[in-house]
């Protein structure tokens, strides 16, 4: 029995020991510990990459504590971190969802003073107009990413049009006819009845271009679009044209020109349908066209050509949706000056060279030239070079997301070496291929931006329900339920669940010019 008692005692002591040992690691007086959270799309060996090495070299006194959150876990983990008040010194999040709450909860530090002191590269290299996204109540709280928000385009299989001898559609009716032809006239000449005009990506995702033809849209991930109508800011979600648009899509769905299962497609199934040569029209980023086309070619569709075109011109409008707001970096206020100083360093020329250009996970440098400057894979090289995938993954794994990107025309404003600056932008241009260049232009031209880009106080209480219900009624109408009844229920719900309150606050916050 003594043995068991000793065992019990040992267990208790063990418990206490683990608790005490794990509580706060030993900190030396000199070092500063900076906790840095970002949202990698893939988990990799970042600690041994040039990015971290360059940082550590410049700041030997900083003990970096890396706290990545997998993008797939972010939506769940971040609110918990917020509610528990335990946010890292540097963290990345979606300011569109959280900016007011973070500010109100004293979880995001005001940056104006510290940026003036140690953030000149951040400020100097920001994309035009982007800093405004990180402002609230007149102060700067976040550093938004500098990637372009206007990056969706309507794409179509040009080779299918050729096979069918049809012109590129322009008007909504022409798009409809093309969709029919894609579905019923065997555009890929394979003798099988296995193609569709277009598809959803779960609910009514990724088909905004058709909505804009009616002057309304659900917007990216159904966050809603606000526009001025009759002198007031109004919500697209409850406009009569939205009902029309949904009924139009319902018609198309019933006809069979929209892939019937796409209402429940997840990412894989959606991509899969396109890569299996089944769908002719695609609403997505021009950036991924090369991937799509090369995959189709490799799979045996030699003539595959998914290409960007203008979105359908409908009775009430024309356009695509933008992202609304870029992902941003915040600072909790702990070790504020040092954190901003470190962060600022990642926007500098010195860092760019030390990190060998492996900063922006969207673009992979191939090698360094004789001057030691990173040279990026060109569009053609990306398609043909067998090492491209490996290298891209390397960059993906080794970089920490900062929002700095070679895509931003201003990104080298503060760099002393102007030749290098020119070189970097040229590198970016080299990464663009035909489809991307055209697509970016089209996206830029047709992107519709909502007038409401930050949450209003009433959103905290009502937005989730409204968004959820909107998705529900939209899919119901599209899949064939009684449109009048569903739409009226929606309007009733909207009025009873915060719709008018939100409208009032939006009109107060974002007055019509």
């Amino acid at each position, binding site marked *: 029995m003594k043995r068991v008692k000793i065992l019990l005692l040992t267990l208790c002591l063990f418990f206490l020991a683990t608790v005490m040992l794990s509580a706060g690691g030993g900190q030396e007086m000199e070092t500063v510990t900076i906790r840095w959270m970002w949202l990698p799309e*893939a988990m990799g060996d970042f600690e041994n990459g040039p990015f971290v090495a360059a940082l550590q070299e410049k700041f030997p006194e900083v003990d970096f504590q890396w706290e990545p959150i997998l993008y797939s876990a972010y939506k769940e983990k971040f609110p918990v971190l917020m509610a528990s008040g335990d946010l890292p010194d540097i963290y990345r999040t979606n300011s569109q969802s959280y900016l007011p709450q973070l500010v109100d909860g004293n979880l995001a530090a005001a940056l104006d003073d510290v940026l003036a002191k140690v953030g000149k590269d951040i400020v100097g290299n920001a994309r035009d107009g982007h800093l405004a996204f990180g402002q609230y109540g007149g102060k700067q709280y976040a550093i938004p990413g500098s990637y372009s928000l206007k990056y969706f385009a309507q794409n179509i299989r040009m080779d299918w049009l050729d096979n069918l001898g049809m012109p590129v559609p322009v008007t909504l009716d022409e798009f409809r006819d093309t969709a029919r032809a894609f579905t019923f006239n065997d555009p890929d000449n394979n003798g099988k009845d296995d193609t569709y005009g277009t598809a959803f990506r779960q609910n009514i995702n990724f088909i905004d271009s058709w909505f804009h033809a009616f002057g309304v849209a659900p917007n990216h991930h159904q966050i809603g679009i606000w526009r001025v109508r009759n002198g007031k800011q109004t919500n697209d979600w409850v406009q009569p044209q939205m009902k029309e648009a949904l009924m139009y899509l319902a018609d198309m769905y019933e006809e069979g020109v929209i892939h019937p299962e796409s209402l429940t497609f997840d990412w894989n199934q959606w991509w899969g349908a396109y890569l299996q040569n089944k769908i002719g029209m695609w609403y997505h980023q021009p950036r991924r066209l090369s*991937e799509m086309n090369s995959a189709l070619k490799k*799979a045996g569709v030699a003539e595959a050509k998914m290409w960007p075109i203008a979105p359908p011109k409908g009775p009430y409008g024309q356009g695509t949706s933008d992202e609304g707001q870029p992902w941003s970096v915040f600072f909790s206020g702990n070790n504020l000056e040092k954190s901003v100083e470190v962060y600022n360093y990642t926007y500098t020329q010195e860092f760019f060279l030390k990190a060998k250009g492996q900063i922006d996970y969207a673009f992979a440098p191939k090698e360094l030239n004789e001057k030691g400057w990173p040279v990026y894979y060109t569009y053609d090289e990306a398609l043909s070079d067998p090492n491209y995938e490996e290298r891209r993954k390397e960059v993906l794994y080794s970089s920490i997301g900062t929002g700095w990107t070679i895509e931003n025309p201003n990104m080298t404003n503060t760099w002393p070496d102007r030749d290098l600056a020119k070189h970097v932008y040229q590198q970016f241009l080299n990464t663009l291929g035909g489809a991307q260049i055209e697509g970016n232009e089209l996206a830029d031209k047709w992107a519709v931006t909502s007038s409401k880009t930050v949450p209003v106080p009433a959103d905290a209480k009502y937005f989730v329900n409204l968004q959820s219900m909107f998705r529900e009624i939209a899919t119901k109408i599209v899949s064939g339920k009684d449109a009048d009844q569903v739409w009226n229920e929606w309007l009733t719900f909207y009025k009873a669940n915060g719709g008018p309150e939100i409208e009032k606050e939006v009109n107060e916050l974002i007055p019509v010019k």
Partner: protein
Amino acid sequence: MPMLSFNNYRLSEKIFVVFVYVFLFIFAAICVFPFLNVFARSFSPEFYIQQGQVWLWPVKFTLNTYVKIFQARGIVSGFKNSFFVAVVGTTINLFMSFMIAYPLSRKRLPLRTVFTLIAVFTMLFPVGIIPLYLLVKKLGLINSLWALIWPYAITTFNMIIIKNYFQTIPDSLEESAFIDGAGELTILFRIFVPLSKPVIAAIGLFYLIFNWNIFMPAVFFLTHPSKYTIQVVLRDILTQHMLEDQLPFEQSAMMTQAGPQGIQAAITIVAMIPILAIYPFIQKYFTSGIMIGSIKG
């Protein structure tokens, strides 16, 4: 276990037995088909899965899915961490559960009803993730595997089963032990525990599975990739794959290329492997009524 031989059964009983056999077969088939399907998919190239050709057996057998998984980062550390939580965690689970099930099973325990209620109450009122996070943080267990063990040390449901089992052990054993001068712990560990082998096997397995499958707490409490458990790593591989190479299969590689569906299937299998490996060894304890029979005798 049937008491008589089949021949001695009346007609209605014979029909019943046949029905039983068939019913069990069908149900078992329904249970196992999804897994055969998953198993088959994990060894098949993406092309055939997408064509709907993969059923219960791999089509054009390939190991590429598994290769892709085991090439991914974090697999080794993931397994190590999961093993730690599984082994240490389950041991603590069983220990703690026995230590409370025993007193609660004794009618002579002062405040027995109170203690039981305190325990059972927690089954109905789950603990929120936010206060738990704050508590774990206060205890300094963030980014420690112990955060996956201590907050979940007792699953009251399992403990109740053990308690109930203890209550079926005859008092005579306890009484004679007292007479022989044994203390409470002796009785627990020298008498009750050895008699509880089927329960240890069953409950131990339940705890093991629970520990092995922990996911959300791992997401919340672990901050550095080196501490991730295998479930987190596998989920990461899956989303990785979803974002990166979406079926870029070459004409020639079509017959062998692994893709998201296949990889997801392979991940399922890999996540299950250790448990499946242990199960046969523990299984014999479930179905042995012999252990229990000896008590009665």
